[in-house]
């Protein structure tokens, strides 16, 4: 922890001062005490660019997002300067809306974040009795007990294993292999309840080409793992899959 702090102390990002370009913009709008629905865009743009220049002068990294916002502001400013055709004026949208809408939404969420921080936080403002008193984890857990584990803990546990074992065991699990696993599970269900099933039946409900491929890969995988046996009837030619 201390090590991290030491590193960051010398590597200041603009992001450490402001959470992002929206945050900086909010700061400027508030500082100028202007209405967000009527932002003096030229003034705010100038202040925004001034900030970026200051940051650069102080050797602070200015992330790309800040530059994108600078470009957006400059663009709005230039559109404001264009003479509006009187006839089109009614339909013409205020160019500032491009920035006002996200700004409004961002402000709301900032207030929401502030509101959350004012609540009585557990383990900071209020405390509960700790779990450690009384008996340790009861041994007689019933199988229908709820289990208090989140999906993140599961993947986190797996990540730790992958980090621990040598790279050749590393299996990069992609979405595709996961859906094949899902299909394997379904076919295993089917075989469990029916003992055997024909090839056609398995493919019957597969609507898309992708699904057919996934099912096919699942069958291959199961055959390779020798969970199933694939047999063809000599006379009828019907292919059946059996529990291995």
């Amino acid at each position: 922890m201390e090590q991290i702090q030491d590193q960051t102390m010398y590597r200041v990002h603009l992001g450490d001062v402001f959470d992002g370009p929206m945050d900086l913009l909010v700061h400027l709008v508030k500082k100028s005490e202007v209405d967000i629905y009527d932002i003096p865009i030229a003034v705010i743009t100038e202040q925004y660019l001034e900030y970026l220049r200051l940051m650069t002068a102080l050797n602070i990294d200015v992330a790309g997002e800040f530059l994108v916002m600078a470009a957006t502001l400059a663009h709005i400013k230039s559109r404001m300067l264009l003479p509006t055709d009187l006839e089109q004026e009614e339909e013409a949208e205020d160019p500032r809306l491009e920035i006002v809408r996200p700004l409004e939404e961002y402000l709301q969420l900032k207030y929401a974040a502030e509101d959350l921080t004012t609540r009585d936080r557990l383990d900071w403002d209020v405390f509960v009795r700790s779990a450690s008193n009384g008996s340790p984890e009861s041994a007689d857990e019933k199988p229908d007990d709820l289990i208090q584990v989140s999906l993140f803990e599961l993947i986190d546990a797996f990540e730790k294993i992958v980090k621990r074992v040598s790279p050749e065991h590393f299996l990069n699990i992609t979405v595709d292999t996961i859906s094949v696993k899902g299909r394997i599970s379904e076919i295993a269900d089917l075989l469990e309840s029916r003992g055997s099933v024909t090839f056609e039946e398995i493919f019957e409900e597969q609507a898309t080409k992708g699904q057919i491929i996934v099912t096919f890969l699942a069958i291959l995988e199961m055959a390779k793992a020798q969970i199933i046996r694939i047999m063809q009837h000599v006379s009828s030619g019907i292919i059946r899959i059996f529990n291995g």
Partner: protein
Amino acid sequence: MDNLKAIVESLLFASDIPLTIDKIKSILDIQDRQAALNALTSLAQEYESQKRGFFLSEVAGGYQLRTRPEYRQWVRRMKQTRPARLSRAAMETLAIVAYKQPVLRSDVEHLRGVDSGGTLRTLLERGLIRVLGRKRLPGRPMVYGTSKRFLEIFDLKELSELPTLKDLQELGEAWPNDST
């Protein structure tokens, strides 16, 4: 069970998670929901009127005894807790997930205007948000929502207890001072 109130209190006292009424009913093997509710209400009133060191908090769909926030400094001192701090960025991200769930990483980043992978990961690790599943979009992106732990930590009965964004904005406009 004439001492129902005392028994309920002992359960609340010994539990490390919020207890739901259903759970209390099933432990005590009673059918009468109202009786359980009465016991809880009456306990809550006693803690208030007697100015006890703890109170009954209605949180995450259940009930839990918690120390009174007024005494935070003393309890903190005893526990020697260092604040498990969440940065402003993490709080913002958390607020977005709380209000906009189910939400994608790209939604969060669109709103905040900055990369939010790291803060999402922090929140996942702290158990404040969870993966709800995946969206049927190219790349099958993960969908996030807040967890039960979020309710427990932020002292919320349920998500709907959060003030609406509109209310917050109206309040917010009353404070001209910068939040930083």
